[in-house]
């Protein structure tokens, strides 16, 4: 009876790319829930729009490259990118913003390099930066935290080019602190403003909390590596606490940095994208710390209020170089401790092949 031959090993495990991606999407659910709780249906519409465009774009590319569409569509990576973009941009941005962003990220940032696994830059962040640079106005109107949009008003806002835009929008705390700082206001006077909740944006803190919960869930499931999130958080907290201790009236507290903007979302969901990060524990630490410190620098001195996207892209840029220099010619663990035998006779390997009396 004939049998097919193939190479060992023959025991596949249940660990698949699809399982990893679905776990990450599942970890995003608490954040989406809180977003919906505070801001209403606008976020759900954005998510729906982004996912449809992503799936459409992905299948289009795969079909164009004559690749089997279904398996790589089901691995959920396109869906994850769509989710990240939809949650990063303001939820009341018009519909064509999220569509163009997702198209750009799936087509250019992912499939131009060959699809899943080959893209050097994080597609979600490339899409976000593309939007930030090309539509600066739409990207800075954030829904005010006190307003809950029900379904039809959210639909009108997103699709029908809303008339009263300013009634709905308000600045985020990050934006607000930056502009006020320029005007010379002191920190504590800034923080009296209505939009401030306990530490940062009124309701946004809870969203960051939800990201944290999702992140810890991923850590427990061993989907992401502990090194990157800790390094990112450390990257932000360290400079923040230094400058805070130096002059607390000008520089906000490290906790504020942590709870505001998309820091925690970046630490647990964006920076830990294995494809674009550097590899190895040391690589993760350097990569994460780089992201954290870049976020801090751009936030305090840079031009853009929340610099998560730029920091992640810049770190992706350096990931191959980190890999090149980190991967010494040894294995991960330092070369095994050289064992000096007590009887010390140093031997050259040829002993076995030497002429042997036993040969008959």
């Amino acid at each position: 009876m004939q049998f097919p031959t193939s190479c060992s090993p023959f025991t596949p495990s249940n660990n698949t790319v699809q399982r990893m991606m679905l776990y990450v999407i599942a970890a995003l659910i608490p954040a989406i829930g809180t977003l919906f709780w505070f801001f209403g249906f606008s976020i759900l519409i954005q998510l729906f729009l982004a996912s449809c465009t992503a799936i459409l774009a992905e299948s289009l590319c795969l079909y164009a490259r004559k690749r089997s569409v279904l398996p790589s569509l089901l691995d959920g990576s396109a869906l994850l990118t769509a989710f990240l973009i939809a949650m990063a941009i303001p939820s009341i941005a018009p519909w064509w913003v999220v569509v163009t962003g997702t198209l750009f990220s799936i087509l250019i940032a992912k499939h131009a390099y060959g699809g899943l696994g080959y893209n050097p830059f994080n597609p979600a962040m490339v899409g976000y930066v593309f939007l930030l640079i090309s539509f600066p106005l739409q990207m800075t109107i954030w829904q005010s935290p006190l307003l809950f949009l029900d379904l039809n008003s959210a639909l009108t806002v997103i699709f029908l080019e809303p008339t009263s835009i300013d009634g709905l929008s308000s600045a985020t705390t990050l934006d607000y602190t930056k502009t006020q700082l320029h005007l010379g206001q002191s920190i504590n006077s800034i923080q009296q403003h209505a939009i401030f909740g306990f530490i940062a944006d009124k309701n946004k803190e809870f969203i960051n909390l939800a990201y944290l919960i999702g992140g810890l869930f991923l850590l427990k499931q061993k989907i992401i590596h502990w090194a990157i999130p800790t390094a990112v958080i450390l990257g932000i907290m360290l400079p923040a606490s230094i400058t805070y201790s130096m002059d607390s009236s000008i520089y906000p507290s490290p906790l504020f940095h942590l709870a505001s903007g998309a820091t925690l979302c970046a630490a647990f969901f964006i920076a830990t994208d294995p494809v674009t990060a550097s590899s190895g524990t040391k690589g993760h630490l350097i990569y994460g710390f780089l992201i954290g410190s870049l976020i801090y620098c751009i936030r305090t001195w840079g031009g853009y209020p929340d610099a998560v996207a730029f920091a992640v892209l810049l770190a992706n840029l350096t990931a191959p170089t980190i890999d090149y220099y980190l991967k010494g010619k040894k294995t991960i663990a330092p070369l095994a401790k050289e064992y000096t035998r007590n009887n010390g006779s140093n031997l050259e390997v040829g002993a076995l092949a030497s002429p042997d009396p036993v040969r008959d």
Partner: protein
Amino acid sequence: MFNFFWRKKKSTFTGGIILDGHKQVTKINTPQLPKELIYPLFLTSDRYTKACVKVGDYVKKGQVIAIADSLLSTPIHAASSGIISSIEKRLIAHPSGLADDCIILQTDGLDSALEAEPCLDYRQQSRDFLRKKIHQAGIVGLGGAAFPTAKKLSGSPAIHTLIINAAECEPYISCDESLAIASAKEIIQGSLIIQHILQASLCIIAIEDSKPDAYLALLFAAKETDIKIQKVPSIYPTGGEKQLIQVLSGEQIPPQKLVFEYGYICQNIATSFAVYQAVLLGIPLTERVITVTGAGIKQAQNIQAKIGTPIKDLVQFCQGYTEHAQQLIMGGPMMGIALASDEIAVIKASNCLLIEPIKASAIQPCIRCGDCAKVCPSELLPQQLYWYSRSQQWDNCTDYNLADCIECGCCDVVCPSKIPLVQSFRIAKSEISQQQKQAEQAALAKKRFENQQQRKLRIEQEKAVLLEKRKATIEKMKAAAAQRKLN
């Protein structure tokens, strides 16, 4: 001297994965005599044997039918009495699926054996006499590598520890475990013989903690002797040489270094049983315990099979295939070889026949998640090695210690994109060894060519010198003739 047993911290090796054992330890049954026995002359890479019997000869059980023909090969013995029907090309148990010259023995059912010459007082014999006896009995490592045992026991670098490897870490395989339960006493005797040959000061039998009854059997049998029975954690691949040494002694053998350089020798438990049979009973290696198991076989069991039995006879003895039989693997599910047909005969190295359905899944691109680096027991970087072997950068592969990869398959199993990593490493290894061979041949050809050039140059010079001499003599003769003409 190392004393392992008082080490507080039980050090385990890095990496490795926990697999569910699927072990069915059964009593060892003996199948009926097969009609035809097939003995391939090609053992494994660069190890050949030469037939020393002609077609039509009558041979007895235990008679040598092929002698060693290269440095690391061992003689082959007939497993039963019968007539040599032919020496022809048959499919052999090799991943290539090619055919090679095999000796075909038609058994006559009498199973009459040569009289054995045991040597009971082995402690008085010289160590070389014992190693010659083991070599002539055709004993090779039965763990799967089939390295000639006599060569391994040369003991030229001082060996301080002999490790008898009973850690059957691959799933499904239970031949060593059932052998340990059935004949613990003989195994202990065999280990003592090997320890005597190696003059090793310490002998340990390492067995996984998931095999309690085999552990107790060995413990009971080794009561009087000073052989230690040591439990090791059942993490795959704890049975690997370097991994086992790290578990037992906490010492990490560096990459590209051989184990015996550091005074350790590992022998499989079945090999020590075979040594016992060869030295104390004088029986050559003609039979071994094989596990026939998997979802594709009706009745999985351990069989005392004659070496050279075609697989289809063994399958018949286990009541044939079930409908799940889509793949025939010789060896375990992690490091076994997929065989092309069940006409192939069992060889000395086959410890298990696994017949199971194919569980293939689509290959996706690598997402650099790094899980493979976490599980690699030799602490390599499978992700980097994969990218380098994919882009055919062989020098980078060698720099990253590809030679130290034991092809255990852990990285392959945990890879979420189901990338055939072991296959790409094997391709890289064969490419690198092929390029090395070519480089050596080219260097040799260059040397021969340069010698030829120098030789031709030397011939020209000699001719030129000869020419001068001849011219000189002609001048002299002409001058002399002219001189004579003058006076």
